[in-house]
């Protein structure tokens, strides 16, 4: 279930390429974000004005929020979190414009981001604790370690699944609802109230994805219980 006309699809079709829409739109959003970031960082004035002050507000607010949860040592992975948040947010919102497609409404996009978070979690754990990181998986009592190890492994794998499916299901479901309302009563602007709700859920989902990533990173950084 996709939007009927996707202009990048038409473009790649004209060039004789067969690239799926979620890939092309992900590229478009990457180009957009890199371009905006370049434009915002170029003036680098001491007293920010215009676009630079907007971006400083967004990034500064995110950083304050994150450091509140993780503590000072969390600043190292702030670029990853900010990238996740901005990318998912724009990905979610762009699907509301006719002719555009949310890359996050495809399970491959969300799975790739969840896998990045998964790998980065364990990278951080090994970086902070070395070989002792295994203690995170063994539970509080040594005798119960064989019981805890499979449970913890399944728990960590379930994190990937829940991150993937939550974002995918939300954005996909929202797109479906919009499409169905458009088909049922598009002439009476039926999808409009859902679109207002969708702006809210898009922001919340981007926020939740990055917030859960922060929580997982914090969990792997702290000492084993």
């Amino acid at each position, binding site marked *: *279930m996709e939007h009927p006309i996707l202009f990048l699809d038409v473009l790649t079709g004209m060039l004789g390429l067969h690239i799926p829409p979620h890939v092309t739109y992900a590229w478009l959003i990457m180009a957009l974000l890199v371009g905006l970031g370049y434009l915002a960082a170029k003036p680098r004035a001491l007293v920010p004005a215009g676009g630079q002050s907007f971006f400083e507000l967004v990034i500064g607010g995110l950083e304050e929020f994150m450091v509140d949860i993780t503590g000072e040592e969390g600043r190292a992975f702030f670029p990853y979190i900010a990238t996740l948040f901005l990318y998912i947010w724009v990905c979610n919102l762009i699907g509301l414009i006719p002719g555009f497609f949310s890359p996050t409404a495809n399970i491959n996009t969300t799975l790739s981001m969840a896998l990045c978070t998964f790998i980065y979690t364990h990278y951080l754990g090994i970086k902070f604790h070395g070989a002792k990181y295994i203690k995170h998986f063994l539970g509080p009592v040594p005798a119960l370690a064989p019981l805890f190890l499979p449970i913890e492994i399944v728990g960590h794998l379930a994190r990937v699944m*829940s991150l993937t*499916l*939550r974002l*995918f*299901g*939300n954005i*996909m*479901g929202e797109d*479906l609802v919009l499409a169905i309302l458009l088909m049922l009563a598009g002439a009476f602007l039926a999808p409009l109230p859902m679109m207002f709700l969708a702006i809210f859920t898009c922001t*919340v*989902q981007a*926020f*939740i994805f990055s*917030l*859960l990533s922060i*929580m997982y990173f914090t969990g792997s950084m702290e000492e084993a219980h």
Partner: protein
Amino acid sequence: MKKLMIAGMTLLFTLGLATLALAAEAAGGAPGLGGFFAASVTAAGFGIGIAAFGTGIGQGLAVRSAVEGIARNPEASGKITVTMLIGLALIESLCIYALVVALIILYAYPMAKPIANALGLK
């Protein structure tokens, strides 16, 4: 009250089965997967309904406690809101799983061919 609920559940169950029976009858003429697809539509609808029921109750309880906490201590509203949002997302993901399963049942038909082969349909 209890009798009413039992009667309601019986009615629902009967109606659900009647849909199945009617669909099977309709598809009976032409050998096909009509019954199977009617069953999958029923399963998807009831599945998402039950999931939304539980999720609604769970989220309602969570929001109630959060609002009570904020009413008692308005200064802690920021932290409570963030925690509540995480909790709501975790609860909501259960309903989202049901939605994904329903979408798989409706659009992906992973079991259509094996079941058709097992039933001897084509």
